[in-house]
């Protein structure tokens, strides 16, 4: 079994503690907010000057002055705040955000992250990715474990230009939850039906196995949305 995109987001949501200040990147990370349980109060940050962002605006209720970093119309939750880019990136660079949930193209065993330059891309763009990678305490990556062509994305060393060196703390994929430690990668969980050897087979970097390494506890679906398939 593999986790779906929603399954990866669900697994991340389980790990975000109450009181976190979180920036969600584009793609799988944006789904994370849908899977938070109501016992947790978490504030979402957007680079363009928002803290306490709510879900995407329902059709017909959009406010033209309120978009997120992905230019989607969003909403605000009570207790939020607006500010400018200077203060927004002080929050990021100054280590005030607790979590940055990002997509990745490659992650290395030492926590190096590559997610800003795709191989075939001709016009480069970096946005706020480097500020997040360098500034936020917990950089958590969400991605498929291997490329469309089945090649590992968790490597001994990144081949693409780095977004940030040694910044990734955790990797959440469709196959595994891996922690980056000073001694290298530590496999903490694997998708239901797999085993550590199966994860290692799709991972170039060597994995140590946590003493309590176990299958992920992810339901097959929530409200009809499949989390694992």
């Amino acid at each position, binding site marked *: 079994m593999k986790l779906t995109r929603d399954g990866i987001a669900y697994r991340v949501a389980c790990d975000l503690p109450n009181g976190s200040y979180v920036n969600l990147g584009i793609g799988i990370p944006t789904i994370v907010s849908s899977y938070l349980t109501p016992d947790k109060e978490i504030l979402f940050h957007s680079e363009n000057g928002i803290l306490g962002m709510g879900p995407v605006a329902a059709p017909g209720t*959009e406010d033209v002055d309120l*978009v997120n970093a992905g230019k989607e119309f969003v909403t605000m939750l009570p207790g939020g705040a607006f500010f400018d880019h200077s203060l927004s990136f002080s929050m990021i660079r100054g280590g005030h955000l607790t979590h940055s949930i990002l997509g990745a193209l490659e992650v290395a065993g030492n926590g190096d992250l590559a997610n800003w330059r795709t191989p075939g891309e001709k*016009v480069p763009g970096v946005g706020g990715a*480097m500020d997040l990678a360098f*500034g936020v305490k917990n950089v958590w990556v969400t991605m498929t474990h291997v490329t469309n062509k089945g090649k590992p994305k968790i490597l001994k060393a990144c081949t693409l230009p780095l977004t940030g060196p040694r910044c990734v703390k955790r990797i959440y994929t469709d196959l595994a939850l891996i922690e980056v430690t000073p001694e290298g990668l530590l496999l903490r969980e694997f998708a239901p039906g797999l085993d550590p050897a199966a994860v290692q087979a799709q991972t170039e970097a060597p994995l140590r196995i946590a003493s309590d390494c176990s299958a992920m506890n992810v339901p097959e679906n929530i409200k009809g949305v499949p989390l694992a398939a």
Partner: protein
Amino acid sequence: MIDKTFKSCEEAVACVPDGATIMLGGFGDPGLPGRLLEALRQKGTKNLAIIHNGAGAGDWALGGLIKDGRIRKLTASFPCNPGAIAFQELYLKGQVELELVPQGTLAERIRAAGAGLGGFFTPTAAGTELAKGKESRVIDGREYVFEKPLRADFAFIRAHRGDRLGNLAFRKAMRNFNMVMATAAEMTIAEVDKLVPVGGIDPEDVHTPGIFVDRVVHIARHPKLVEITGPK
């Protein structure tokens, strides 16, 4: 009496010469001074260096200026946004220069110019491709990159409310780059949705004090920018 208001965008941008460096506020549509840019486009001003987070979208405002071949250089963090077709075409033909700056470094370089600083050390990008050729320094055990202030001849910004003294208040996510850019240009020109009398913005609610603003133009929102919920 101080009166910084101008009757039209055309008058407000009339003094912008060919070759000028222009900071352009906004992030997506919120806070984008699209009408000032359209006035500049009508005027035919060319050979411009633009400082903006993205590379414009479609063929309106910045997208239009780029499509018309008026831009010699863009300093941006995210010029690869899907709508920036005009820029991407020109860039691939080698007809426009690009300086790529991480978004937080872009904001901080602009702030440094406005705050009169000579530069700063930031951790962002240290050891990456974007730090190549830049001075680096280890401070208290961490590696930093030296970045210089970024100034412009003009800043074009958009606010929600403004008065004749140049005081501005933004709405929701409109502040973005507008507040720092207002401080870092020789001349700051603001497009405002509403012109209010002096005192109409409470001193607690002024986001950009008038000291940073030289010209204010009141102009109805662009039809593309329809307010769906009521404004504050």
